[in-house]
């Protein structure tokens, strides 16, 4: 469906900057495009971003970098997202860092598997550039409520 795009639409759809200057985000994805898009979407709002293209690289970065959260793809060469999550949870230095799965696995049961594996959240691809930060915020808020209980 190709909607006519009235001109006033352009201003309405202009992104409003959210204040997330204090966010340090590690994004792990083997797809360069996904890395680029997620990085831009977060940086626009002020977040600091580091990227890795597989689980091993991601873990290497975590040795010196302590992010606010990790956005983690599932299917990757070398080390996939499941194994990287497990390695992070096994390491006392990284086990408390929130990890959100960012994945194109969107068949029935995938979300349940992800949550069962210990991820803090699940964002299916393709994600919306306009709303990804809001989504992350709501996942983090939910997680904090969960911790408080």
């Amino acid at each position, binding site marked *: *469906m*190709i*909607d*006519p*795009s009235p001109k006033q639409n*352009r201003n309405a*759809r*202009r*992104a409003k900057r959210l204040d997330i200057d204090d966010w340090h985000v590690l994004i792990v994805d083997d*797809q360069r*495009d*996904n890395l*680029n*898009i*997620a990085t*831009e*979407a977060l940086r*626009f709002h002020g977040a600091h971003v580091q990227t890795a293209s597989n689980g091993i690289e991601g873990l290497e970065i975590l040795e010196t970098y302590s992010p606010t959260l990790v956005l983690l793809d599932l*299917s990757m060469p070398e080390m996939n997202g499941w194994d990287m999550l497990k390695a992070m949870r096994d390491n006392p230095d990284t086990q408390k860092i929130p990890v959100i799965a960012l994945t*194109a*696995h*969107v*068949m*029935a049961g995938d979300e349940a598997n992800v949550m069962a594996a210990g991820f803090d959240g699940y964002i299916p*691809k*393709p*994600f*919306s*550039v*306009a709303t990804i930060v809001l989504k992350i915020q709501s996942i983090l808020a939910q997680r904090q409520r969960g911790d408080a209980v």
Partner: protein
Amino acid sequence: MLQFSPYLVLIGFSAVISIFLAWFFWQRRPAPGIGSFVTMMLALSCWSIASALQLAVTTLAGKAFFINLVLINVMIATASWFLFTLSYTGRDGWVTQKSVLGLTIFPVLTTIAMLTNDYHNLFWTSTSLTASDGLITHIFESGILFYVHTAYQYALIVAGQFILLRSVIRSPQLYRGQIGLLVIGALFPLIGNIIFLFIGTPLPDYFDPTPTIFLVTGICIGLAYYRFRLMDIVPVAREIIVENMVDGVIVVDREVRIVDINKAALKILGKEGKNVLGQPLLNVWEKQREALMQFRGVEQAETEVNLIVNNEPRTYQVRLSPLRDRHGNLTGRIGTLTDITTLKQIQHKLEDARQKADEATRLKSDFLATMSHELRTPLNAVIGYSELMTSGMVGDLSEQHWEYTDRIASNAKSLLELINDILDISKIEAGRMELKLRPMHLSTWMNELVVQNQVLADNKNLTFTIEIDHHLPETLIGDADRLRQIAVNLLSNAFKFTNEGTVTFQILKHDSQLWSIIVTDTGIGIPPHKQETIFNEFQQADTSSTREHSGTGLGLAIVRKLVLMMGGHIRLQSELDKGSTFTVLLPLITDVPKTENLVVGVTS
């Protein structure tokens, strides 16, 4: 010269009944012992006739002739009786030419003794005539040979009765009635004869009631036949069924010697003729020694055995059951062999087909999952980059750049919709679509839909009216996501094909069983001949290449499949240039299931 007595009528009557019974049973051939029985009845009838003539003639020579004839028929009748009991109780094997010949030796000797009495007077010591009741009758004094003859006749009758009695005791309850009747029949002539010979009767000496009494035997057997069909059951069960059974039947005794075997079993053994009877099964079936050993000492079994029969591998189902005497002691075993080779082959084929079908289903599901992942990944990039640009996150664009980028984004979103629709259709068709039935709050569900779709109305300056029936419960059971999919598809169609006027969205209570989602528009309408096909995949009312309306053509197909999965149905009313009304009727479920998350899988 002949004389008359009223007793002649009685004797003649007996003769007629005997002949009738002989004829009657002759019609019922073949049945066990029927030959012997018919012979017995004929002999009985001859006996009666000879007895009548003996009374009627007045000369000593004539009387002697017919008395001899009576005695010959008595011998035939008793021998036939004995043979009948053997056949009837299943001892056919004993009724051979040799044994029948053996039975005739004594009567032949008796007959010779009888005919040559004039020379030795050992059969009759004296013969003379006398007058009694105005009739000329005979006085024949019995000699030693006559008593031997009589003893022999009684021996045969008693032996036959003994054989029948044994059968009565050993036979299943079912047959006791008929054999009991036979024994009663058999006792009659014996008792009658004893009374006649040793005790005496009020009847005159010259009248021999034995053939008349013997007739009772025939009538008893006739009754038994009619009431219990004895001539049918035994042979059918024993001979015809077992012998011609497709299954092999082997009976062995305690020492595993073959006692009985039918044709089918002989074929399996690769033997001919019944000369295997009495031989140890292990010797007869040397080739299958190993297969047989597993049944050693086993009384009861049901198992499958693979055998080579006629150089062909066959599979048999073997059923082994113990045979016991009435004290419960094991006397032998009966084994049946059923050829299940074809059945097995079909089973294997079915199993293969099922595995292949499962494999195909699995491959299809895997393919769907892979497709879904592989298509979404590049789409994510296209949509993501376009949105980065149109949202101004990566700097400003010229007017034209912005518009074209926006077009890239909306085309990519259309493609994504199409992929989702194809996946949905495939999932429904593969039976992998699951309905998650949960309580849903109707007005909340409807309000969300209205908020989502208001923008479509605003874009085209259409009126969007909604109605919710307050007779409906606030909460009902359904799959909110799939119901939303149905409503969104119907609403987006309504907005797409309506250029001015109103789109109405109603949720109504149809009756006590059904509720309905109704979407009405004032759009272009659907021509009657398209009203059926638009629910098929890739069908739009306008299929021309220049059609002005975009869309996958899958929306209504998905709607219909989902509605059917939910146990509902969909109706369409439409008029060209006036508008369309889609009515979805769904079962009204209000009781909350115990389980929070009831999942219903439906194969379409």
